[in-house]
């Protein structure tokens, strides 16, 4: 593989550990994690699932749309490496999904059809508490180097600690409460995508790109921006106005 971008790696660890800043946004945080996994670990796609308060996994972030669909497929069919990883708390890997039908009769063919050949699922775990799994996919038969999976696991660990700290330190909330908030924030973003998609006659995916770009440019939390879009205090026109330099009212 290519030499790892160490500067980006260090920056990523700082970012993942830094959940206590004011503008922390869990939806954005999880998207950064999957994007950085793709950039740093030389994988084709990365996805992240967290357990809700009923102990059921939810797809929280995916670097690509076809991976999101595959992750949902795993949940719906109760079959796949991410579920195994979450249940056992152990990393799960398969170097060639084309020959993994015995292990995952429904998932393996679906993954191959979606263009993925290799999977690594890393647990998001702090001591005995498992809050989810981070999944790395490659389009070629591929064995990630041990050093790479170790870095991936370290990123998952730091993110897990960050998430749990964010819950316990910031708001004195329980983990359940915070996961509930995380899930809810994700739903707010989905609703805002719908509002924007309808107003601008674009797809929800395009609407998400607009939201993220605007949130970054104006240092908004993604969830706050989504709330503003829903209540109408930021209009679709403002979001599209990419040349605007004056930040909107917070």
């Amino acid at each position: 593989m290519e030499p790892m971008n160490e500067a980006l790696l260090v920056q990523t660890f700082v970012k993942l550990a830094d959940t206590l800043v004011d503008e922390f946004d869990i939806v954005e945080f999880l998207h950064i994690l999957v994007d950085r996994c793709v950039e740093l670990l030389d994988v084709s796609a990365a996805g992240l699932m967290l357990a809700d308060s009923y102990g059921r996994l939810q797809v929280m972030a995916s670097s690509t749309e076809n991976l999101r669909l595959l992750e949902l497929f795993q949940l719906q069919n109760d079959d796949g490496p991410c579920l195994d990883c979450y249940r056992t708390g152990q990393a799960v890997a398969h170097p060639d999904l084309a020959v993994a039908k015995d292990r995952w009769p429904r998932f393996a063919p679906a993954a191959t059809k979606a263009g993925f050949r290799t999977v690594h699922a890393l647990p998001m775990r702090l001591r005995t508490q498992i809050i989810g799994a981070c999944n790395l996919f490659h389009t070629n038969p591929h064995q990630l180097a041990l050093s790479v999976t170790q870095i991936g696991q370290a990123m998952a660990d730091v993110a897990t600690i960050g998430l749990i700290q964010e819950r316990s330190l910031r708001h004195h909330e329980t983990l359940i409460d915070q996961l509930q908030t995380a899930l809810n924030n994700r739903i707010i973003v989905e609703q805002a995508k719908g509002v924007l998609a309808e107003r601008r006659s674009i797809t929800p995916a395009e609407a998400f790109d607009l939201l993220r770009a605007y949130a970054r440019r104006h240092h908004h939390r993604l969830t706050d921006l989504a709330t503003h879009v829903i209540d109408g205090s930021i209009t679709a026109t403002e979001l599209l106005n990419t040349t605007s330099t004056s930040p909107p009212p917070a």
Partner: protein
Amino acid sequence: MTRGSRLDQVWGAITAHAAARGVPVSLHVLCETAIARLPVTGVAVAIPGGFLASELICVTDPLSRRLEELQLTIGEGPTLEALAASLSILVEDLDAPEYHKRWPLFAPQAIDAGARAIFVMPLRIGAVRGGVFALYVNRSGRLPANDLAEAWVFAQFALELVLNERSRIITQDGYPLAYGHFETPPEVHQATGMISVQLGVTMGEAFARLRARAFADDLPLSELATDVVTRRIRFTHGDTG
């Protein structure tokens, strides 16, 4: 996945309670089941009100009724706060100084009425605010983690029943999740956002319309939502529901 989990246990308990009483599943049955399974004195469900800040739609006992009415009268308290902020509020000891400071009128009167611990969970799906699920206890103490997790499950089912009522969906004894949001794909929430623009209504109203139409047309919610997102279906004011 972990089916046979808390969701099944709680829903099983609710339907068993309804069957034992010979009545259909309702919010009242849900609240009674919650009292039987959780270490609490009373349960209340309130929804955002029109004229008043909140509207009490289900209450199991005089203490809970008194506490809800007290908050409406004096205009402060955990239910009103949870409704406004959409955050859960877990009060282990209402007599602690921080709560006297936070609710100078409510705290002493609530203690006089016999309440010592209060746990309020918001009923929400993104920007859809469905109300609150409130648990009252006549002694102080933390709600153990397992009970808290179960309380969240009760709260989610309560939301389900509130939404069903709003969409005029008849709640069957079967799992209500066919129209629920537990495992709903993002398309459902995206479609809700789109419908809110198409009809010029709130997110809550849009979600109620989507659910009502799925129920009326006997379609899975996710299927109807996908039709909305891919623009095969538009909602117009002429639609019923």
